[in-house]
């Protein structure tokens, strides 16, 4: 028996390679192109999958160990938060409407990401990237479920969350995040990971994370804070995966650079368009505000992404040109969005309200060049109408952008009093857009975007009535029929002031403090 030679301790990098890349093989009984049919049609050329640099080296045994420890801590806090009615410790019940946005608009995206990463985790030819994508698919399922479980407690006491799955599938405003994500999952594997792995998870993650999670902490929502920090630790791995994929594509073939640049341009724009919801939430919906959208943009895009795009310059990648328009819209975005959601409040599953005088002063200070001139007059006039008992409310369905599906409330960059509009003709049909950049994305793949289910158009096509509805029947009320189809609980709509949520929160909070 030979002497037991002291085994050379394998380095982490080498050991991880044996545990992942070593597992794969070149198939012979089936052609590799049949086993991996989807990773070449996009035009991205990969000459050497082995050149892949593993972004993080977590084998399954460590994964289970560390993630289980995170999960025990997380659920202990979620349970404690539920048991002692933690929702009553939040700063102000209006905050709870950001939780409604979270479960309706964001949690379902986590599930879609789970399925998307399982798809590309099966389609990339290289074993290294596949293992990293499969692990992210598992992480995303975690995020979807921990969000559902953390928010389940809010759902028991407040309106607008019970039908979040049906709403994400059909509610008009939720087709903005949904169509954004389906644009990515319907794209090829490389575009998907550029869109979600890089643009959304890396470039924009902090613009989503700071308002929601530190905003939750700052407003006394320990449940959401716990979930957020714990989930965000997985994001760190996702960010490194997203960055590694971009570098890998750019290093493999110069021909990949223009394709990746086009995707970066598209997904930075479409991503920022979706973040309009987050800008509105940050500036109008958090009772205690962490920072303004403009400030978050400066820190988490201009500063952080400046460093990122400087790093990518060596590959010939430039900052997406749309950033110029985003900068021009920065000081208008949240006010335009809140105006739309305020006047459309009868048709949404969360409450809106007019900013108080003190909040308007905060907005004036944060947006000195725009708020007082363009938005304060509107809010003050609406406050007058509310005081006179004739609150302003929209009495029509909005025109929506064919691409981002957001109601066309965006004004022309540099002309804050002119609503933007762009037109395109394709195959004898007309299409309208909120911006040149949305129109350009359409121009690139019209065959894709002519299929979009534009919410208002679907309603007018009669596709959003309950099964068996006869629209020609006597006294047929289309609005009521659509409300029934959408399962929109009337108590969840309208102004926060005078809502069930407001009354219940005050009554319950009273119970915890008084002894009557």
């Amino acid at each position, binding site marked *: 028996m030979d002497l037991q030679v002291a085994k050379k301790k394998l380095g982490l990098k080498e050991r991880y390679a044996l545990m992942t890349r070593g597992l794969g093989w070149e198939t012979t009984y089936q052609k590799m192109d049949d086993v991996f049919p989807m990773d070449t049609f996009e035009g991205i050329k990969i000459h050497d999958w082995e050149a892949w640099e593993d972004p993080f080296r*977590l084998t399954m045994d460590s994964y289970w160990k560390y993630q289980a420890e995170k999960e025990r801590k997380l659920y202990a806090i979620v349970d404690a938060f539920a048991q002692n009615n933690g929702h009553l410790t939040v700063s102000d019940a209006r905050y709870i409407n950001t939780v409604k946005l979270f479960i309706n608009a964001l949690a379902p995206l986590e599930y879609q990401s789970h399925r998307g990463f399982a798809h590309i985790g099966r389609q990339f030819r290289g074993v290294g990237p596949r293992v990293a994508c499969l692990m992210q698919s598992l992480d995303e399922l975690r995020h979807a479920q921990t969000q559902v479980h953390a928010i389940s407690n809010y759902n028991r006491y407040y309106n607008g969350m019970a039908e979040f799955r049906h709403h994400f599938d059909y509610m008009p405003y939720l087709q903005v995040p949904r169509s954004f994500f389906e644009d990515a999952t319907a794209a090829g594997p490389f575009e998907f990971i550029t869109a979600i792995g890089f643009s959304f998870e890396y470039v924009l993650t902090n613009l989503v994370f700071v308002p929601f999670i530190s905003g939750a902490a700052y407003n006394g929502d320990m449940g959401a804070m716990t979930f957020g920090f714990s989930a965000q630790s997985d*994001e760190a791995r996702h960010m490194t995966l997203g960055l590694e994929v971009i570098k890998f594509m750019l290093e493999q073939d110069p021909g990949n650079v223009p394709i990746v640049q086009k995707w970066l341009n598209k997904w930075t724009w479409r991503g920022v368009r979706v973040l309009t919801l987050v800008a509105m939430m940050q500036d109008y919906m958090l009772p205690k505000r962490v920072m303004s959208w403009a400030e978050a943009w400066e820190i988490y895009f201009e500063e952080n992404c400046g*460093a990122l795009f400087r790093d990518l*310059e060596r590959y010939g990648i430039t900052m997406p040109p749309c950033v110029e328009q985003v900068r021009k819209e920065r000081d208008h975005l949240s006010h335009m969005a809140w105006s739309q959601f305020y006047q459309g409040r009868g048709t949404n599953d969360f409450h809106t309200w007019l900013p108080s005088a003190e909040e308007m002063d905060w907005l004036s200070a944060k947006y000195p060049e725009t708020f007082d001139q363009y938005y304060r007059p509107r809010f003050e006039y609406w406050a007058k109408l509310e005081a006179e008992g004739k609150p302003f409310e929209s009495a029509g369905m909005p025109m929506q952008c064919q691409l981002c599906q957001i109601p066309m409330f965006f004004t022309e960059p540099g002309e804050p009093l002119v609503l933007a509009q762009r037109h395109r003709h394709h195959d004898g049909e007309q299409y309208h857009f909120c911006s040149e950049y949305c129109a350009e994305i359409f121009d690139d793949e019209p065959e894709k975007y002519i299929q979009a289910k534009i919410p208002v158009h679907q309603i007018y096509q009669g596709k959003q009535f309950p099964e068996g509805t006869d629209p020609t029947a006597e006294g047929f009320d289309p609005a009521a029929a659509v409300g029934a189809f959408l399962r929109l609980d009337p108590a969840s709509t309208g102004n926060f002031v005078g809502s069930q949520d407001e009354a219940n929160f005050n009554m319950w909070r009273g119970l915890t403090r008084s002894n009557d």
Partner: protein
Amino acid sequence: MSRTESSVFVALQANADTRELVEAILADNPHAVLHEDPAMVRISAVGSLSVHAESVSERIGRDYDLQEMHINLISLSGHVDETDETFTLSWAN
């Protein structure tokens, strides 16, 4: 505009488990800057930032596996280079 040197950062939950880790990082990276936010600690540094398992182990009195950092990590920025001994964040430019 001069080519500003890019900075990296690591954000950690502010709890008992990360106290020594933060100390070790600050000790090993004199150029690093500490930012304290609600329940979160952010350490940023121009150029690069590295975490040495050795100096964390000294402070906690047991062998520290760098991958334990995942439990309390919140977010980071920069390229990751991970070995058994060191976890480094850096920008190539």
